[in-house]
């Protein structure tokens, strides 16, 4: 190889752009959030995209492992007039830490003894028939709860007429905030509070592009050992997903329907997904 050729080769090797082949179809990303058109270094993912993926995974893992700050969440919730009227209760499941929580879903479905005692006291003191217990649970993303629970409840509670003495308003139990909980812990809480229904707000399993997604689960007549077939679910509530107002509207619809029909789950599902109803609801003046 001549000296010229050697220089030329060295120059090419230095040019970092030459080592990455871009994909002209990258512009199709306008149609999907999928990681298409990443380009390639040889046949491998270029550094920029490899690290972007690692960052997304790191955020998702942090969302799973960062503990719920009871102080932060209760401050945020109590800033809402409707919540501070109801009061809040801090509860724990039977799972002692994250490792145990991840491996023993059964522990996450039940309250520990001190938490049961707390709820029994509430029931003993007040002896009220609650229409609804609202349960805020860390689930797999405390981040989702800290981000979304308060703004969602700010939309939901006024719709339930919690501050008014109307006959169709809901008599709501103190807001329960639960650490290391699964969806079904709402049923345990609903049973102990003797509530007619329970609405669980829970941090969903984080996806790479959604570490902060909150889910809602509604059960009419909660009791232990129910399955998902008895619950209605609204998923993907977050700033970049379903908005708080839309979610509150759907939840109110489901709650009212559940109350009329005295049931929840599969039998309620079809009507709640009736889009014409929801559209009509959206068009109503606020």
């Amino acid at each position, binding site marked *: 190889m001549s000296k010229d050729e050697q220089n030329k080769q060295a120059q090419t090797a230095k040019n970092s752009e030459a080592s990455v082949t871009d994909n002209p179809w990258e512009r*199709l*990303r306008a149609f999907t959030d999928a990681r*298409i058109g990443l380009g390639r270094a040889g*046949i491998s*993912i270029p550094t920029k995209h490899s690290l972007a993926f690692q960052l997304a*995974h790191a955020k998702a893992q942090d969302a799973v492992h960062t503990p719920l700050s009871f102080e932060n969440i209760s401050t945020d919730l109590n800033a809402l007039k409707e919540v501070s009227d109801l009061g809040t209760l801090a509860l724990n499941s039977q799972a002692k830490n994250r490792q145990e929580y991840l*491996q023993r879903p059964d522990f996450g479905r039940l309250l520990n003894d001190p938490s049961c005692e707390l709820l029994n006291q509430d029931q003993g003191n007040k002896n009220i028939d609650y229409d609804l217990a609202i349960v805020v649970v860390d689930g797999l993303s405390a981040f989702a709860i800290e981000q979304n629970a308060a703004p969602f409840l700010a939309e939901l509670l006024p719709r339930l007429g919690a501050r008014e003495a109307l006959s169709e308003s809901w008599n709501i139990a103190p807001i329960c905030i639960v650490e290391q909980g699964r969806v079904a812990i709402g049923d345990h809480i609903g049973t102990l509070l003797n509530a007619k229904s329970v609405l669980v707000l829970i941090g969903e399993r*984080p*996806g790479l592009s959604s570490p902060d997604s909150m889910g809602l689960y509604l059960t009419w007549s909660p009791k232990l050992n129910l399955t998902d077939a008895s619950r209605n679910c609204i998923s993907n509530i977050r700033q970049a997903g379903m908005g708080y107002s839309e979610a509150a509207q759907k939840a109110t619809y489901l709650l009212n329907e559940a109350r009329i029909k005295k049931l929840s789950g599969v039998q309620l599902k079809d009507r709640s997904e009736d889009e014409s109803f929801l559209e009509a609801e959206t068009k109503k003046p606020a």
Partner: protein
Amino acid sequence: MNKGRYSFHHSVGSKTYHFNDLKELMAKATPARSGDRLAGLAASNAEERVVAQMVLAEVPLKRFLEDTLIPYEDDEITRLIIDEHNKAAFEPISHLTVGDFRNWLLSDLASTEMLTTIRSGITPEMAAAVSKIMRNQDLILVSKTCQVSTAFRNTIGLPGHLSTRLQPNHPTDDLTGIAASILDGLLYANGDAVIGINPATDNVTQTRRLLDMTNELIESYEIPTQSCVLTHVTNTIEAIEKNAPVDLVFQSIGGTQATNDSFGFNLSTLAEAHDAALSLNRGTIGNNVMYFETGQGSSLSANAHHMVDQQTCEARAYAVARKFNPLLVNTVVGFIGPEYLYDGKEIIRAGLEDHFCGKLLGVPMGCDVCYTNHADADQNDMDNLLTLLGVAGCNFIMGIPGSDDIMLNYQTTSFHDALYARRAMGLRPAPEFEAWLHKLEIANDHNSFSLNSHVPALFNDSIKRLAGS
């Protein structure tokens, strides 16, 4: 059945270990994993686990034909296993214990031809038992000797080949979004096993829409591959009745009748679907028309495990699979979550076990090399499992854009990962598909897999069309 119930004892020093029956022995001999702990079936400590493996090694293979772990009367999968057991094929290994069977599998006696001959004489429980006393390298070495290849519009599972399922999922089933991911995959030389979509909306109308779209794509680009919408088997039967272009019938399957009840089907449902798909006669070079997915933990999660360990339940699902001559079967190994497989180590071990048991039983085994964000696993663990499975001769893996499934919210192997495996291990796509890649100038050399730097003219047009839509 269940003629003999046995209990087992073994002493180490002054301590005597006792195992009540064969299924307890199997469970306690299983390499550690969270799902068996969750079920309360795992060995209570490391010593008990190895003692159980030593006792299991002494159990004659014949005993698995008498002592069915799940009673014959209670479970149609047990009946399938026992009724279809081939005594002539079993003959060459009928005198062996589980421990001898491991030696035999690793010996020069176990050639590819011999392994093919005996496969219908092996029951899932025998395969599971021997896997429990095998190290990872044993599982890899024997898997590599097993060969199971299948065909529809191309040939999958030939030695030295690695295929991919192109998985272009979209959270709202947006057709343009799905087409964009398919194009990305094809231009990265993926999609020879199947173009397989998990629909976000799971009904017949949606299935039909997606099938029409992929069918048109395969026909217009003349791609030697097949499509599949991974909807419930009963939806696919209905789609076939409505003349939808169904290449493959999909179903998630488990290893007990009660698991499959919870999935909403039984063996006769699968038989009906199999017949319906065969009647369409859409394969050009073969007639393998079924696609099954499995995964350790599904039986326990449906409370349908009969106190049998999760790896044995999984192996029993392969008896269901092989009954219907599938084109593709894959374990979705890390999808179920950390309560069943806790971390990268447990996921890797399970992936190798599933691949081994499937191949030994004659199932065309692939693997969804994957994890969720709540498992203690990462891309490096997947690189390890992918490489180990590449060496083991795995038939196919998944291929998705940048490892990120935006619909199912988990991470599996990317289009790039498949090219890594092909280049690092000298593996090739299905031969018919490889010829197409060269014809369309997507790939440009036959030996160390590389791609052309320019976009083939045919695809340039479709990119413009999509971008303008």
